[in-house]
């Protein structure tokens, strides 16, 4: 069986880490059911079997657990939206399509503790009366499909999956489902389309998946880390879990430290952890003693912050919102003073252009247009009126698409142009380009300049 070598977690854990979700990572053979059972595994599920569905949902609400995939929606509320008395079958769907640039945390949960994901699914299934659950996992994570398949097999053998689980009359089946390379399939409604064997394009919302989800049935769809957190909430109680974090955001979060850092890695930190400590203590500081220039808190879809904006900032949903960005998926990207922000903006836009599913025109055309424009700046061929135009174009994409991919492309771009305007100015083409002689057909002119003339 494949195992990452060296392991993906820090060993020993950083002293500032709060070890909960990662408590079994460092055990030998941690993915096996024997290790899991010897270290408290499936105890929370046994406890949940004694609780009513309403009690489980109430605990999750009290815990202030918010979705760990990026949007940060309160999980308890999401569970309560599933109509339990519906005559249709209900489904659990796990979003393991981790592909937000900067994010690599779900890999650890699935590689080192796959049974905790199954336990979270089982508790959620008990709460919403679901009989089947699917783990939608990105195609690139093939080795994790094998690990999860083996864990599922073990769980069947030990009576935690299948018919009449532990003699309680509960039935639940779990399956893995492989994607095949599409960032868009991490968006919940596109994921459901993909799960049904179609192109991964988003659905119009509402209805949300809780009402009309997988196979047109009520569905609880959440991120891997969200499901993995549920057993701990049941075990310690919603209140104790909430107390680990800050107001309106409970618990711990696996945080991926990436970019210009001495000790990048995945660390389990409580919600509300200070950004300064995150970079300079846990992350080991910036190599060569260079200064911080820009900071992305949770994947490339979040607006970029400057070093000054990071002062006194903490890693929680509301603190980030106050500074005009998002906590996102926990994929932190640290950029030092040597970073070329035009190059960063271009690379981010190239990604969204490649991954736009093409369903909504503002996103499909907007990302292509912006990519071309940023490419010109990167080559030192920018024109002054285009600096403003990049921002204008991006703003025209906001809120005009079915899903958030259009916004995810626009938001970082807008923030980079606004906060690092001078870097775009340095990439202007000061040499006038000779205008070719008009040919036999009318030649379309450049669009009129926006704002101050060029």
């Amino acid at each position, binding site marked *: 069986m494949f195992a990452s070598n060296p392991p993906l977690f820090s060993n020993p854990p950083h002293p500032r880490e709060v070890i909960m979700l990662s408590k079994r990572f460092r055990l030998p053979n941690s993915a096996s059911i024997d290790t899991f059972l010897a270290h408290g595994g499936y105890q929370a599920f046994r406890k949940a079997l004694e609780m009513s569905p309403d009690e489980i949902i109430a605990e999750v609400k009290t815990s202030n657990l918010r979705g760990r995939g990026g949007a940060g929606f309160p999980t308890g509320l999401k569970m309560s939206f599933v109509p339990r008395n519906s005559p249709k079958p209900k489904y659990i769907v796990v979003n393991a399509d981790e592909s937000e640039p900067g994010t690599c945390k779900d890999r650890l949960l699935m590689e080192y503790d796959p049974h905790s994901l199954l336990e979270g699914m089982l508790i959620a299934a008990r709460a919403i009366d679901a009989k089947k659950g699917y783990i939608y996992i990105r195609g690139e994570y093939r080795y994790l499909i094998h690990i999860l398949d083996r864990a599922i097999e073990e769980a069947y053998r030990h009576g935690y999956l299948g018919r009449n689980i532990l003699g309680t009359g509960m039935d639940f089946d779990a399956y893995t489902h*492989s994607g095949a390379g599409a960032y868009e399939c991490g968006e919940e409604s596109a994921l459901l389309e993909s799960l049904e064997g179609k192109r991964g394009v988003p659905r119009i919302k509402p209805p949300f998946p809780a009402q009309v989800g997988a196979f047109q049935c009520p569905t609880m769809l959440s991120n891997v880390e969200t499901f993995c957190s549920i057993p701990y909430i049941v075990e310690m109680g919603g209140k104790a879990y909430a107390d680990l974090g800050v107001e309106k955001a409970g618990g711990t979060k696996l945080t991926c430290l990436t970019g210009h850092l001495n000790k990048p890695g995945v660390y389990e930190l409580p919600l509300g952890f200070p950004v300064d400590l995150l970079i300079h203590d846990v992350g080991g500081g910036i190599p060569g003693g260079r200064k911080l220039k820009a900071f992305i808190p949770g994947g490339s879809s979040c607006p970029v912050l400057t070093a000054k904006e990071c002062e006194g900032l903490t890693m929680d949903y509301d603190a980030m919102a106050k500074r005009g960005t998002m906590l996102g998926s926990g994929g932190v990207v640290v950029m030092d003073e040597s970073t070329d922000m035009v190059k960063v903006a271009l690379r981010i836009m190239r990604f969204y252009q490649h991954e736009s599913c093409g369903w909504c025109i503002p996103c499909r055309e907007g990302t292509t247009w912006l990519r071309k424009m940023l490419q010109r700046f990167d080559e030192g061929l920018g024109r002054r009126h285009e600096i403003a135009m990049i921002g204008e174009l991006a703003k025209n994409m906001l809120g005009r698409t079915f899903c958030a991919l259009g916004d995810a492309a626009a938001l970082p771009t807008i923030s980079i142009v606004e906060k690092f305007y001078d870097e775009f100015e340095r990439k202007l083409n000061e040499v006038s380009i000779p205008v070719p002689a008009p040919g036999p057909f009318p030649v379309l002119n450049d669009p009129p300049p926006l704002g101050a003339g060029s």
Partner: protein
Amino acid sequence: MTFSPQLEARFAKMLASYPPGRQRSAVVPMLIFAQDEVGSITPELVQEVARRCGVQPVQVEECVTYYSMLRKKPLGKYHVQICTNISCLLNGGEELWKRACAQTGLGHKQVSADGMISLEEVECIGACSWAPALQVNYDFEHLVTPERLDEILAACRKGDYVEKAK
């Protein structure tokens, strides 16, 4: 078309895992697992998956053209996928990509004449904390130095790169 007994067993399990009448769900996973055995998505494979899932071939075809890991032409025995997305970019991913191109004389999605190796510049593969990273088929390579890249490419060309995550 017939596949290996292991793959047939996987397909049987797969088709049974979706609710009755929802076998279309198996299209994408079936395509990617079959591609690993066949080498690419051939017209016969499209027909076969359509038949097994009870859909029209065009419904399979529209998935083939959408998902970036599905391909109609075979790639190298070792498909080297180098990430140049943000976290890798900041840690030298672009330099690795250029080095790999120069070393092999190949470009994006090109295959060597002997079919041993192909290159692709890919989007985020989920190894951001261990950047720069790449994948050889399904194997992850973390914190790749230029020297390690040269070793990987040499092993692929000779055919002795050891795959663990197949």
